[in-house]
């Protein structure tokens, strides 16, 4: 088999607490990102993504502490995004235990930040995150949670960031985000078909079929979702089973792995 399609749950974290997260019944504190991360680790998530939506840049220490505590108990890759402006911001997250760092707004105003991070820490840890909306004849990059237009073509921007050294592109449709209407497959495919780096589909998942479509029709290497996991509508195992049923390579179920370490 070849490299597996990845299923990535995403948690929004503000001031060290999960804002939009899973209501796992067994959690003592559903607002603690470390507990949620541990639950996803046990459930066999392929990776985890923390999006730090803390409003103030002064409070960066909080997310570093969350990352440090998560890395101590979770043995899967962790991507952290939100508020990363410089290579030094990235370094602080990597030293705290993040495996990859996602850059968004800073790469719009200064795309070279992607090259800075890739040169210092390697392309493998540099994720370029792009928020896009449909406009006439294509897609436009938006910043600030999809509120601020930039006039920049999203596909060209994504390809440029890959050329500058991004090792992965996280592509979010702001038209679809929160709608549960499925990924913007045309957007995902327009980028995935024109780059040799992996693309993560994001924004709009309403069900397991959307995950399948993201890989099969969007040509993404990984699928990111929030609410279907958060509200307990689907488990990581359900997601893997749906992808496998569509003929997409995924990991074996957790129960088939090393018994000593299966919790």
């Amino acid at each position: 088999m070849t490299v597996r399609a990845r299923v990535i749950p995403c948690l929004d974290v503000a001031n060290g607490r999960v804002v939009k997260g899973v209501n796992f019944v067994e959690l003592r504190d559903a607002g603690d990102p470390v507990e949620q991360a541990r639950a996803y680790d046990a459930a066999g998530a392929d990776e985890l993504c923390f999006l730090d939506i803390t409003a103030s840049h002064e409070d960066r220490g909080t997310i570093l502490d969350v990352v440090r505590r998560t890395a101590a108990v979770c043995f899967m890759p962790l991507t952290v995004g939100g508020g990363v402006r410089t290579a030094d911001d990235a370094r602080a997250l990597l030293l705290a235990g993040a495996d990859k760092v996602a850059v968004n707004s800073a790469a719009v105003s200064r795309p070279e930040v992607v090259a800075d991070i890739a040169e210092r820490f390697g392309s493998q840890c540099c994720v370029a995150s792009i928020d896009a909306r449909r406009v006439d004849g294509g897609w436009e990059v938006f910043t600030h949670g999809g509120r601020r237009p930039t006039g920049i073509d999203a596909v060209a921007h994504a390809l440029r960031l890959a050329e500058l050294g991004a090792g992965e592109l996280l592509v979010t449709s702001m038209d679809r985000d929160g709608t549960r209407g499925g990924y913007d497959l045309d957007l995902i495919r327009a980028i995935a078909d024109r780059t040799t780096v992996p693309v993560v589909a994001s924004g709009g998942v309403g069900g397991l079929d959307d995950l399948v479509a993201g890989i099969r029709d969007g040509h993404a290497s990984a699928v990111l979702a929030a609410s279907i996991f958060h509200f307990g509508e689907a488990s990581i195992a359900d997601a893997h089973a749906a992808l496998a049923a569509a003929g997409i390579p995924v990991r074996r179920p957790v129960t088939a792995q090393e018994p000593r370490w299966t919790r």
Partner: protein
Amino acid sequence: MLALIDYGAGNLYSVANALKAAGCDDLIVTADPDAVARADRIVLPGVGAFGACARALRSIDGMVDALDRRVRTEAAPFLGVCVGMQLMADAGEEMGTHPGLGWIAGRVRKLEPGSMDAKVPHMGWNDVIPTGEHPLIVPGEAYFLHSYAFDGADVIATTDHAGPVTAAIGRDNMLGVQFHPEKSQSYGLAILERFLAWRS
């Protein structure tokens, strides 16, 4: 005592955490060649570019000599992870050609995107396929995250990314894994657990 070499590699703490979870209760994170000389086992982590990692390791006075003596002459069990495994090779061809430790004959070369299904970086879970019997490396799935791969002797496991790609190398008391055991959940922790008991 297990020495985890600190030469500025980014994944140091993840590797330390995973070793502790696998049962290591006597671990030091160190840049001191004297500590390496006394260590029962040695782990060399690494992420990022081969040249930068090789330079950083050499910049620690006496470290390469201490590693050579403890691992190659005195046969202390050694584990290299990702770029730490690549450093066991003769040379790496990432942003120029840089000498490695020269423990295992071979070179580290860029992965070429084989097709749109085999993107680079090779990122995600993939098979570990042993080429023979090895006490530490068993078939399973592990997390890979790399754009360069080892090509040479003493390959003990491969993976498939538009063709075979080296997943592990080793000889005698030396083991190197391209994948990240510290990020490979139960499969990876079990390898670390076996490493802690290896040859003792």
